[in-house]
Each structure stands twice: as structure tokens, then as C-alpha cells.
């Protein structure tokens, strides 16, 4: 049943554990030897990236089955196994994680001044755990990675963050933990219902009674919705993003909040097809609210990072809309948009970090005329801005268009309302760009130096990916086709009546 | 032949005295000694069980108890020294460091 690992060596384990081993080895470096710390962090992140490349080249796009599978007994007493594998839905996120980590290491090069060693160790630990989440095929293992990632992230925000970092870190931690704990309850229920197994693949093809599906759907929803974050549990995101150091924001935006959407795809939909179908209108309503709400609230922001954080809420609304459209266009658009958002918002945070290193201000009012002073930087930021507002030829367009297409096919009102998000999206992003980059040069940015080679190297992969996905998205879409189709087939067995938000709220 | 219960009663009595000392004395060293008393009470019962049940395991356990008691005394006394150095007192009712 399981696809054999076509490579001769355990590639997923190596991708997960190389950064973790790297982190352990870095413990041995003397803390005063800063350049060695930086270079070894860079070395391990690049090594991980190179190790992950066979996933891209050797992936078999013709099967929905898990690939590069590894399976070992771990705790036989509770039937817990160490099993890993990727399919068309998860493989791209592994690659995205390895890439984003490199940029995080690079962008933190000079901006992190204190506790350098611990910072890079935390970064590498996060990377290992993130990849583990996307690869785990055992619920126990999955949950361990899911929670393990939280701790270094918490530290990252709490130690190297901005002025209100402790508040933001604790808020982030509590929010995600509350959701995760409910998911843990759900996992345990599945464990016992499924005959004492944590095997995700086995559990995903079982048929659960409808009433049970509903409860479990909401238990898992709690964990995933917080991570995404969906309206109305999004308020941790602006604080966490704003206070986190640049690398933290990038990882948050790039990978961490994708895990929620990934959870919906990997668990909620295939495990509970009836409940998912029934909840479609509710989920779409919440998604559309998130799209418009997130976009409108951006208009009122005065803080650069906060604005981009809220735009994440809006963009992730598109992702969940695509997922719950439950057709191929919507799902593929959703997955692609997850990657797009990782790239674009990650890049925007990188850019903000780059200028923040120079001005130490996140207030939009402290900027103005940056395009005159830092023209190359302005050009990069323009590319990211345009990608963010979904200009055709760039990656954001492909994702958003497919999502709106899928959303419209599923529910017309959802497609129409989601499309209004694009209008507001253009408004806030261009207004931001105008206030920061155009107009008279603000004395506070006068005389700043333009981006250096390291920063260009940091941003360039993002630009390349933006255009690559925009001009030839099939490279990436082709990974998904079979897996998404398989998911749709699984979903189509669901026959439960639809619930609307109003019905749900008023128990009609 | 002395009945087993006598030994157990003796152990009980020593244990109770240890509890009494631990609960009433202010001096932290005496409290420690009370703990040693309790451990010894346990040892008495263990050895007597060993004798009456014809089983060596009772003595083995009391051997471990002695080991732990030694370790505990070493650490505990070191803590007392450290505490005394900081607080200049050896009285438990003058220390409330763990107040919530």
C-alpha cells in the first residue's frame, strides 16, 4: 500500500534532523565567536535546503500516495510509530520551509545583536520542527512537532522582539496552546475510535458517525483556525508579527500560519468529509469576513508590520475560502496561495526588517520618499507590493484567481465578496507604498544606505519565485493535481446537509 | 520469640516521634534530624519484615534507604548552609521564599 522511498536514504529524516543536529552542534561554539555562529547557521540552513531538493526533482507527480516514506516502531506499547512521508499537498511546504529559513538567517545577520547563539539555535530548531509537522504521518509524532515548534517561536518573540514582546509572546503561546489542546483531545478520541492507532493514513480513510465528526471537526478547527488565523481568532497575529524580530515574522508569515491551513487539508477535510461539507457555508462566511475585515482594518494601521500582519489575515482568508470551496480550482488555488503568501508576505517582512535595521522605526509616518533614497530597495518592495495585490504575471494573481473561481463556483456570493477584498487590497498596499516610498523625503530616512549584496541575495529568491509562479505556475500546480483530486474524491462521499453561520449561531 | 507486631509498633512510635519533631520544631537542623528518625523507623520495619518473612529484599531496601538518607543529608545540609549564608537564620518560620 505504501509507496516505497524511491531514494536510497531517509531523505525526510535528514531534512528534519540536519537543522536540529546543527543546533546541537552550535551549542559547542563559543558564544563570543559570532561570525562562526552565523556562518554555521547559514551552512546548516543551506545544507538542509540542498538536502531537500531531491523532494522537488524526484517527486512522482502521478500518484496521490505518500512518498519518501519512512516507518519505524517507536513506542510499540501504544502503537506509536515514527513514520514520515509527503504527498503533493505537503511537499512544497517542506521546500518552502527550507528556503525561508535561509532568508531568515541572512536577514538576521546584523540585526540580532544579543544572544546570537541562542537565536540561531532557536531558528534551526524551528526549522526542524516545522518540516516535521509537514512530514509526520503519525498523530503522536505530528503533535510533538506541532507543539515543539511553539517553544522556540515563543522564545524568539519573547527574547528578541520589540518593546511589547512579552505580551505578544504570551498571547501567541496561549492562543495556539488552547487550540492545540482541543486538537489533542480530538486526536485521543480518534486513537480510541480507530482501534488504538495513531496512523494518519489509516485514520483518514475510516468513516466516523456524523455527530462525532461534527465534534471532532470543531476540536480540530480550534487548533487550525487559531494558526491560520481565521476571523475571529486572529488578534494574536498582529501583536506577534509586530513584536517578533524580522526572522520571527518571516517564519510566522511564511510557514507557521500555513500549518493551520495545512491542517485543514490534511486532517479536517479527509477525516470528516460529512462535517466539512456541512460546515462549508460557515467556513466560507468566516473566510470572506476575514478577507474583507482584514483588508479594511489595514486601512487604519499606522505601523508597517501591523499592516502587513493584518493583510495576512486577509490573504489567509483567501486560502481558507479556496480550501472550503471544495473543488479542484479552489483547493489548488488555496495551496498555491499558501505558498504565494509565504513568499510574498515573507518577503514583505524581510523588506520591512531591512529598513527597520536602518531606521529602527515601524511607524509609517516616520517614512516618506524612501524611493529617492533607496531606489533598489524601493524596486524590490514594489515587486512584493504588486505580488501582494495580485497583479497578473506575478504569483498572487494565480492563487487568488483560482480561489475566486473556485469560490464563485461553490457559492456565488463568496466569490463576489472575496473579489472586493482585492480592491481594498490594492488600496491599502498602494497607500502604504505611497506613504513610505513616495512624496517628499522624510528627514528621518535621509542619507540611509541602499540595500547591500547580502540583502539583495536575501530578497532575490523571492523575486524569482514570484515571477516563476506568476508566469509558469504549472511547475508547482502539477505537484498538486493528483493529490487534490484524491482529496476531492474523498470529500465527495460526504452527504450531510449544509449548515449556515446563522443556523449554527441560533441553533436552528 | 518477639512478635513481629512489636517491632512494627516500635517503628510506628519512632515514625510518629519523627513527625512530631518535624512539625513542631523551628530549627531546620532538628527538622532534618526528625526526617532521619522517620527513615530509621522505616528501616526498622523493613529489617524486621526481612527477618520474619525470611526474605533478603527487606534488607536490600533498607540499604537503599540508607543510601538515599546519606545523599539527602549531604544535599540538605548544603542547602541549609547556603540558606544560612543568605538569610542568617536557621528557623523555618522566618523563611517564606516560596510565598505565592
Amino acid at each position, binding site marked *: 500500500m505504501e509507496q516505497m522511498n524511491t531514494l536510497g536514504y531517509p531523505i525526510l529524516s535528514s531534512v528534519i534532523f540536519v537543522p536540529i543536529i546543527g543546533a546541537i552542534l552550535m551549542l559547542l561554539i563559543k558564544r563570543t565567536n559570532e561570525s562562526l555562529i552565523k556562518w554555521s547557521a547559514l551552512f546548516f540552513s543551506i545544507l538542509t535546503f540542498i538536502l531537500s531538493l531531491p523532494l522537488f526533482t524526484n517527486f512522482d507527480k502521478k500518484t496521490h500516495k505518500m512518498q519518501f516514506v519512512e516507518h519505524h516502531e517507536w513506542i510499540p506499547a501504544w502503537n506509536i510509530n515514527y513514520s514520515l512521508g509527503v504527498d503533493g499537498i505537503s511537499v512544497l511546504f517542506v521546500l518552502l520551509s527550507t528556503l525561508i529559513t535561509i532568508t531568515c538567517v541572512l536577514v538576521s545577520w546584523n540585526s540580532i545583536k544579543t544572544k546570537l547563539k541562542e537565536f540561531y539555535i532557536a531558528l534551526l530548531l524551528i526549522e526542524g520542527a516545522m518540516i516535521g509537522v509537514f512530514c509526520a504521518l503519525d498523530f503522536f509524532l505530528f503533535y510533538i512537532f506541532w507543539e515543539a515548534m511553539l517553544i522556540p517561536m515563543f522564545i524568539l518573540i519573547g527574547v528578541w522582539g520589540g518593546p511589547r514582546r512579552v505580551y505578544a509572546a504570551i498571547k501567541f503561546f496561549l492562543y495556539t496552546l488552547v487550540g492545540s489542546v482541543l486538537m489533542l483531545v480530538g486526536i485521543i478520541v480518534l486513537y480510541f475510535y480507530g482501534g488504538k492507532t495513531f496512523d494518519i493514513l489509516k485514520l483518514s480513510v475510516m468513516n466516523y458517525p456524523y455527530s462525532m465528526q461534527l465534534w471532532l471537526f470543531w476540536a480540530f478547527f480550534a487548533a487550525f483556525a487559531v494558526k491560520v488565523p481565521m476571523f475571529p481568532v486572529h*488578534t494574536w497575529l498582529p501583536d506577534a508579527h509586530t513584536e517578533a524580530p524580522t526572522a520571527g515574522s518571516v517564519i510566522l508569515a511564511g510557514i507557521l500560519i500555513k500549518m493551520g491551513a495545512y491542517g485543514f487539508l490534511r486532517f479536517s477535510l479527509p477525516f470528516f468529509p460529512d462535517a466539512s461539507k456541512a460546515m462549508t457555508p460557515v467556513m466560507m462566511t468566516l473566510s470572506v469576513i476575514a478577507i474583507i475585515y482584514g483588508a479594511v482594518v489595514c486601512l487604519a494601521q499606522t505601523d508597517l508590520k501591523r499592516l502587513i500582519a493584518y493583510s495576512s489575515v486577509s490573504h489567509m482568508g483567501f486560502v481558507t475560502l479556496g480550501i472550503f470551496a471544495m473543488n479542484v480550482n479552489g483547493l489548488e488555488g488555496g495551496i498555491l496561495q499558501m505558498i504565494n503568501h509565504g513568499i510574498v508576505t515573507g518577503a514583505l517582512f524581510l523588506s520591512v526588517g531591512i529598513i527597520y535595521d536602518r531606521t529602527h522605526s515601524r511607524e509609517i509616518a516616520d517614512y516618506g520618499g524612501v524611493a529617492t533614497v533607496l531606489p533598489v530597495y524601493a524596486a524590490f518592495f514594489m515587486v512584493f507590493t504588486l505580488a501582494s495585490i495580485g497583479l*497578473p504575471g506575478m504569483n498572487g494573481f494565480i492563487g487568488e484567481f483560482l480561489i475566486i473561481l473556485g469560490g464563485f463556483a461553490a457559492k456565488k456570493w463568496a466569490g463576489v465578496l472575496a473579489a472586493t477584498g*482585492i480592491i481594498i487590497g490594492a*488600496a491599502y498596499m*498602494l497607500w502604504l507604498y505611497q506613504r513610505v516610498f513616495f512624496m517628499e523625503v522624510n528627514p528621518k530616512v535621509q542619507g540611509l544606505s541602499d540595500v547591500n549584496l547580502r540583502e539583495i541575495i536575501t530578497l532575490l529568491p523571492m523575486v524569482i519565485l514570484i515571477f516563476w509562479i506568476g508566469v509558469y505556475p504549472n511547475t508547482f500546480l502539477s505537484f498538486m493535481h493528483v493529490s487534490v483530486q484524491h482529496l476531492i474524491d474523498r470529500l465527495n462521499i460526504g452527504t450531510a446537509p449544509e449548515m449556515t453561520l446563522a443556523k449554527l449561531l441560533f441553533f436552528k | 520469640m518477639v512478635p513481629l507486631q512489636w517491632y512494627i509498633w516500635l517503628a510506628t512510635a519512632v515514625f510518629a516521634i519523627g513527625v512530631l519533631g518535624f512539625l513542631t520544631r523551628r530549627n531546620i537542623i532538628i527538622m532534618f534530624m526528625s526526617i532521619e528518625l522517620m527513615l530509621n523507623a522505616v528501616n526498622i520495619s523493613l529489617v524486621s519484615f526481612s527477618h520474619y518473612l525470611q526474605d533478603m529484599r527487606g534488607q536490600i531496601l533498607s540499604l537503599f534507604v540508607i543510601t538515599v538518607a546519606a545523599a539527602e543529608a549531604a544535599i540538605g545540609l548544603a542547602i541549609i548552609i547556603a540558606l544560612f549564608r543568605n538569610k542568617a537564620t536557621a528557623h523555618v518560620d522566618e523563611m517564606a521564599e516560596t510565598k505565592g
Partner: protein
Amino acid sequence: MKSYQLIPFLPLAAFVINILLGKRIIKDKAHWIAVPAVLASWVISVFTLFDVIGGKVFNEDLYTWIISDGFIVSVGFLVDQLTAVMLIVVTTVSSLVHIYSVGYMHGDKGYYRFFSYLSLFTFSMLMLVMANNFLQLYFGWEAVGLCSYFLIGFWYEKKSASDAGKKAFIVNRFGDFGFGLGVIMIFLTFGTIHYEPVFNAVNGIVGQSINILGYDISLVTLIALLLFCGAVGKSAQIPLHVWLPDAMEGPTPVSALIHAATMVTAGVFMVARCNPIFNLSHVAMNVVAVTGAVTALFAATIALVQNDIKRIIAYSTISQLGYMFLACGVGAYAAGIFHLYTHAFFKALLFLGAGSVMHAMAGELDIQKMGGLKKYMPWTYWTFLLASLSIAGIPGFAGFFSKDEILWQAYASGPLGKIVWFLGAVTALLTAFYSFRIVFVAFHGKFRGTHEQEHHLHESPKVMTLPLAILAIGAIISGWVGIPPLIGEFLGIEHSDKFGAFLAPVVGHPHAEGTHGEEIFVMLLSILFAVGGIITAFFMYIKRPEIPVQLGESMKTAYRVLWNKYYVDELYHLIIVRPTFWVAQSVIVGVTDGKIIEGIVNGVPRAIGGFSEILRRVQTGFAHHYAAVMALGLLIIMIFLIL
């Protein structure tokens, strides 16, 4: 690779080279990259035109862009008669504007940037007109909007310029919103978004309807109207016209290229391209015609009183675009495209002429501060005059033929046609008037600017006047390919309406219901209006300059309304911009996010904290208290065990 496939990619290559190397290496040599590229595109376009005239139509996919389930979209090129005309218009005007900009932008610090944007625009516009599917059209559609944004905000240090660029983009997004949904509707209806299969299948959906909010709406009407939304935005028709006048903040060559000749006509092109869809919906056609006619008149009235030379021409552009939609709306797509084609020449010429004037006047825009420029800048004057004659519709000039064709087709297309014809005819009168108002106020009379300006007055360099001259020739003769049969017979030319015949395979040929007598009547009336407008302007601004002032005083309200452009901007500010910001700031940040959600989120831990505040008193910190509690616990357990 076929040669015509190079047409868009040459400017793209120029853009890439200039934007990457411009800052460090190329600098003020940027035109050596951009101009040859666009000229080469022009040459290939001309050859392509001859190919198409020879009967070849190309429709080939370059590569598959997106595959997602049934949603399969290619990047490909369709070159038919309509595209060929657009190619010529775009590359010609673009080439001339490129050349003109060499002089106009000389010495600007963003010189290389300007040329790379121009190249990017040319690429985008060519992709737009050459698309063979709706998504690629949408790509070009947004991309030209982006270039427009870049170029309007070219001098981004000026707040007004960056505001205008942003406004253009966002207003266009409103139109694109409808357009995008239209594309999605097309896909969901036909299962493809390539022109050919869609247009072949469109007859099959007549009579089908779709239920929206309980109303049954004809599917084809819905699709057509959604597409038209995009056209309204891009071509600055009511109610989304507000961005175009502001777009005049950009450098003048940009106004000529983007905001007169090419980009803004994309809407007309799209409607003509989608004529198989529009033809099937009377409602949509009527909406197009009425929107066009009303916009034409509306913009013309505003143009009457403005003093900013570029804004007058901008409103004139909106008005002329209205004509084109009017033509499309009555089914005379060929006439609309014909007007698009002639308009490109004389409107680009007007803008470039205005640019030449600004060049001489050190950026001065107010025509009231000009005057008597004729003797300082003869080339500019004469070309500007020719363009004005053309736009006014003086017989023999290009504008006459195209405008007359539109008015006649409108007149001959039923009762609604008569109404829009009337609106169009009145607009013709106003057009002649305001066009010559510029000529008379700016070029005749006495100079009214400062001494410094007067001292500085000079004719523009050759590199600028040459394009003017070429465009002037175009403004005269470009209409000669579409001489109506009536005049053609009179002049003894067979098949004089070559343009209409050429386009007929794509857009069909409307059959006008009318007699020769009526046609002559319409033609004479429009000539009369054109001449009447010019004479009125002459009378008011040369003979009796006090009349306009008196008129303004006697009709104060009307004047103020026109001067403030019917307060449309203010209205939008009141009903869209301010409420949105109010919701963002006061409702969301203030109440829902700030109070409700954060209240719950922070409230739960606070409640837990309050509870534990009570509980913490148990933790006295005294070891013997803990020991006592432990002993008590032991006691209780033992009691339970024994009893």
C-alpha cells in the same frame, strides 16, 4: 517562433535591460535601447498587417499558462483584422511618443526609468491586444494599469502625482472587479476562456438565465455587463471616469500614449473583441450605448470651462471614448474602432502639442496664462490646429470620417439610436467649441504669462516636432481609408470604406436603416455643428473676449457645477472613501478588534488571574505549613483506609 510573436517581446526585452542596467550603466542612453525595440515592433506590425490583409489570421498558443482541473489557459496570440489595426495604432503612437520623449524627458533624473516604463507599457498593451483568451487579456489589462500607475506617479516626490497614480489604479480595480467576475462567469458557462471556443458557443446560451438573489438574469447579459464594467474602468466612462483627469499629473508623453491613444481605448477594443457576446444582449448593448453617449456629453460640458490645458484634453478624451462606446453600443463596432484609430492620431497630437507648449512655458498648464504662442512655436501651432480641426470634425480630416460614421450608424439604428445620436451631435458641437477655445486662447491674442516665461519661449527641438509632424499627417489622412460610400461614390472611389470592410470578418457589418437623404442630413448637421462650434469659439475668444466672463457671471451655478466637475470626486469621497475609513478606524480597530475580540481574549486570562489571586494566599511560603497540610492529608487518607 513566428516573427509576429516578437512584437510584444522586443519592448519587454528593452524594459528588462533598461530597468536592470539603467541606473548604473545605461543612464541617459536608455532611448538607444527602447526606441529601436519599439521601432522594430512597429516594422513587424506593419508586415503583420500586410499578412492579415493578405488573408492570414494567426491564432497560436505559446505555452500553457495555468492548468487546474478544467481551467486550462494558454499564453497565446490571436492576430486577426482587429488585432492588426490595434497593433498598428499601438506601435505607431508608441514609437512616436518614444521619440518625442527623447527630447521631452531630456535631463530628467528618472530618464532610464521613464523609458523602461514606456517599454513595459508597450509590451503590456501589445499582450492585451494580441491575447487569444480572456485571462491573458486580463493580464494585459492589469499590466497596462500598472504602467499607468507607474507613469502617472512618475514624479513620485509630488504628492499629487503619487495620489493620482494610486487613484487611477484603485478606480480601475473597481472596474476590473467586474471584469474578473465576468471572466469567471465565462469559464463557468463555457468551460474555457479562449476566445474562439467561447465565441463559437455563445449562441448556445441565449435564453439561459441565472438566479442572483432571487432575480433571474439573462446569462449573456450578465456576462456582457460584467465585462463592460472593466471597460468602464479602463476607458474612464461614467461613473469610473474620475481617475483620468487626475492622471494628467504624469509626464505629457505618457498622457498622449496611455491616456489618449492606447490604454484607455482598451475598453473599446475589448467590447469590439467580445462583440459576439454583446450582440446577443440588447440590454447590454443599450447600456453600452447610453453610457457612451452620456459620458460623451458629460465630459464635453466639463471641458468647456476648464483652464488646465491637459485636463481639457483629458475630458475631451473621455468624451471621445464615449463616442466609441456609443458606436459599439449601436452595433457599429467597425465605426468605433475606426474612431479609436483616428482618435489615436489627433489626440496624441493634441497631447504632444500641449507637451510642447508646456516645454516652452516651463511646465505652465493654465491656458489663461498663455496666449499668442503662435508666433513663438509655429510647428506646434500648426500641428495643434490640424489636430483640432480633425477632432472638431471638419470634412476631409480624419476625425470627420470616423465621427460621421458613428453618428450616422447611431441615427440609423432605431429609436434609442436617435436619442444617442442627438446626444452625440450636441457633443460634436461642444467638442468643436472647446477644442478651438484652446487654440484661440493659448495660441492667439497676447501673451499673458510672466516676463520670464515670455523670454524663455521657444520652439521645441526637432526630436519633438518631428513626431508632431508625423502625427499631423496621420490626423489628416488616417481617415481616408474609411470614407463612407456616400462620399466615395461622389468622389468616384470604389469600396471607399476599406476600413469597415477590413474589419467586417471580426466585428460584422451593421446594416443601417436609413435613406441617402437621412444620411446626407446627418452629415450636413455634423458639419454644421463643427463649423458652428469653431465660429462660436472664435467669436467668444477672439472677437468679444468679454462674453465668456459675462456668461460665467450670469450662469454662476451652472458654471460652478461644471468647474467642479459635477462634484463627482466629492461624492465618492463622501460615500465610499470616508465611510470605509470610518469603519476601519472607528468600528474595527476601535470596537470589534479593540473591544470585543480583545476583550474576550484578554478577559478570560484576567478572570483566571483573579481567581488565582484568591488561591495564592494558600501559598504562605512557610515550610511547616506545607508539612502540616501533608500530615493532615496522610491522616485523612489513613482514616479512609481504616474505616
